[in-house]
């Protein structure tokens, strides 16, 4: 039988390698998926450029951060990037509105089929893709500074006397905190303000909303502003936690879409739940549970293998797997969103 310390050790081990990383990754995905789901709900198309809008906004944050660092500005222990974040958001909003003006409005006036929007967004994706690489290059950029750890593994071990440590990085703590604040603010906006209600009405039935005097251009503009803000925040958090590289942001659209669809596309709550489902699936399916099993059986059972369900190379495939299963079993997602047609 495992004793109490063994159970604590197993819990610490799981927290360190599963719960903490999945929680912060899930929060980053949730913010990204919220943007996708809002654009889908209101503009009625799957925005493939979302990952690159994230990369573009984060790029501005990174550049401003570098500039601030060079000027000697610091808000230690909080990363300098938080000072740069408002500027990044502002530039990302201008970019999104500019793209809407030049690309999407043209198609909106003609009331084209959703698939044409999707293809246009693929074009925007490549444009932003190239622009980001042109400005900052394709390489890794590390812009995190300030304190690194809230709790570090060594301190945790000394404090508790356990054999296993838990590490929580400042970036992970901040990610979760900021996500909670942003999500609360967004839901308050959608539920309580006049504009938020107008957006929901527009999403529910466009013609009825127009008849009741809602200005569609304004609704669309506000949607882009929110989407760009969410994307830049999510991208900055992801970059602080990991690192900024344009290509990885481009790849993020897959788990973000999976998150939005699992939750029910067009449903903000669904995007958040979906983000955590995708993140926890990725981490839990590729984690090797051998050591956990050792603790829980008090060393009584040492498995031959590593008790790993999927090898880590398949991490990326999990998003695909989830997408396929959801579209087959429950195409509307958990919270009964729209079916993509």
């Amino acid at each position, binding site marked *: 039988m495992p004793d109490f310390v063994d159970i604590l050790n197993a819990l610490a081990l799981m927290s*360190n*390698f*599963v719960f903490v*990383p999945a929680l912060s*990754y899930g929060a980053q995905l949730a913010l990204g998926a919220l943007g996708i789901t809002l654009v889908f709900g209101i503009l009625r198309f799957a925005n493939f450029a979302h990952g690159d809008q994230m990369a573009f906004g984060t790029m501005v944050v990174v550049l401003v951060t570098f500039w601030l660092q060079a000027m000697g500005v610091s808000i230690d222990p909080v990363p300098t990037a938080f000072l740069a974040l408002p500027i990044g958001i502002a530039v990302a909003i201008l970019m999104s509105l500019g793209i809407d003006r030049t690309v999407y409005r043209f198609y909106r006036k003609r009331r084209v089929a959703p698939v044409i929007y999707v293809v246009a967004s693929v074009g925007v994706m490549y444009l932003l893709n190239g622009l980001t690489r042109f400005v900052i290059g394709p390489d*890794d950029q590390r812009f995190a500074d300030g304190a*690194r*750890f809230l709790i*570090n*593994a*060594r301190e945790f*071990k000394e404090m508790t006397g356990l054999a296993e*440590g838990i*590490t929580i*990085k400042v970036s992970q703590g901040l990610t979760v905190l900021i996500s909670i604040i942003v999500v609360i603010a967004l839901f308050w906006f959608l539920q309580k303000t006049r504009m938020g209600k107008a957006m929901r009405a527009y999403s529910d039935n466009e013609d009825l909303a127009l008849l009741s005097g809602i200005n569609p251009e304004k609704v669309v503009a506000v949607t882009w502003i929110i989407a760009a803000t969410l994307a830049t925040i999510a991208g900055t958090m*992801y*970059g602080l*936690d*990991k*690192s*900024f*590289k344009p*290509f*990885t942001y481009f790849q993020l659209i897959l788990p973000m879409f999976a998150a939005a669809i699992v939750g029910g596309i067009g449903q903000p709550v669904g995007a958040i739940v979906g983000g955590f489902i995708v993140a926890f699936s*990725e*981490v839990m399916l*590729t*984690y*090797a*549970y*051998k*050591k*956990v099993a*050792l603790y829980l059986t008090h060393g009584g059972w040492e498995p031959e293998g*590593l*008790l*790993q369900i999927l*090898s*880590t*190379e398949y*991490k990326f495939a999990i998003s695909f797997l989830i997408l396929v299963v959801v579209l087959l079993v429950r195409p509307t997602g958990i919270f009964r969103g729209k079916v993509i047609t």
Partner: protein
Amino acid sequence: MKKVLLASSILALSAGLSGAAQAEVKLGVILGFTGPIESVTPGMADAAELAMKEVSDSGKLLGGETVVSVRGDSTCVDSAAAQAAAERLITSEGIAAIMGADCSGVTGAIANNVAVPKGIVMVSPSATSPALSTIEDNGYFFRTAPSDARQGQVLSDIAMDRGIKEIAVTYTNNDYGKGLADSFQAAYEAAGGKVSIVVPHEDGKADYSAEVGALAASGSEVLAVFGYVDQGGRGIIQSSLDTGAFGSFLIADGMTAESLLENFGDSIDGTVGTLPGTDSPGAAKFLEVAKSMGVDGDGPFRAESYDAAALILLAMQAAGSTDSAALKDKMLDVANAPGEPIYPGELAKALEIIASGGDVDYVGATAVELIGPGEAAGSYKELLVEGGKYTTVQIR
């Protein structure tokens, strides 16, 4: 009739051209001038061309031939492009031999599909995959870089000497990483060690916590990282330190660089690594020679490149011909004992000795000793990280 005339005039023209080309020997320098190692290759090409210039200036090669370098782009990663480049250099430039290629994948592609079928000698300064030891090369393929089978053995010896009986291994998912991990695992297990888990990692990802989680679950204390210091290797070490999964590492040549210490400092104290290198006087002499000719000799694989070009030219002298079929049989003769030892800057002397019927043992910048299928035996420095600095423990 017209066609026959045209064909015969082309034939005459090309015969005339090849006749004119006899005054100079062309060597192909096929390296990845674009692509992932584009920052490394110009220095390698310069070093190879240094040896060619030394030989040309001496005026002693085959009665005074000059050597001309023709560069081609291997791209490091695109086999089709690399083969096209080699094909072009052989058929339209008429090169006598190839100094190259660089990365293991494209080197194998050129050797298998172009150089060997066409009967052109190829000497790679930097392809280290063990798989290249066993290709069907008909004696045309050589390398002045040691196979990673040797490095795997050295790494295993180091681990054993330090009392590491169990280890987790992660490698970058390509020919280099896989080859090195396999050879390390074979040597280590033969010596009685236990590899608890092997996890490949992809370069260029933002997050390696899943890989590190799996590696940590194996329960091993030490992690072997066979990757690139500016790529996934760094991410793996960063994530290991962050989560407290591993504190010390066994690293190979792709990781043992200054930038590793710039990133991690003394937080990876106790880490041991290997780097190709010797304490032979050739290395210092090469730096001197390079400096006097206005080339910077201090950089990855530059010494090997110089040696590769020098060996080809000495073998030509020994064969008395620029024909690859003849010179391939002389490569081992000039590279190995017996004979007068030859260091960088002494190529003129070597050409003279060979011309007068003597025997040379080319030591060069990297203490070249060609073994088995025509590859360098290879010596490595064992480096230990102490107080955030590399210290050389010994040469293996």
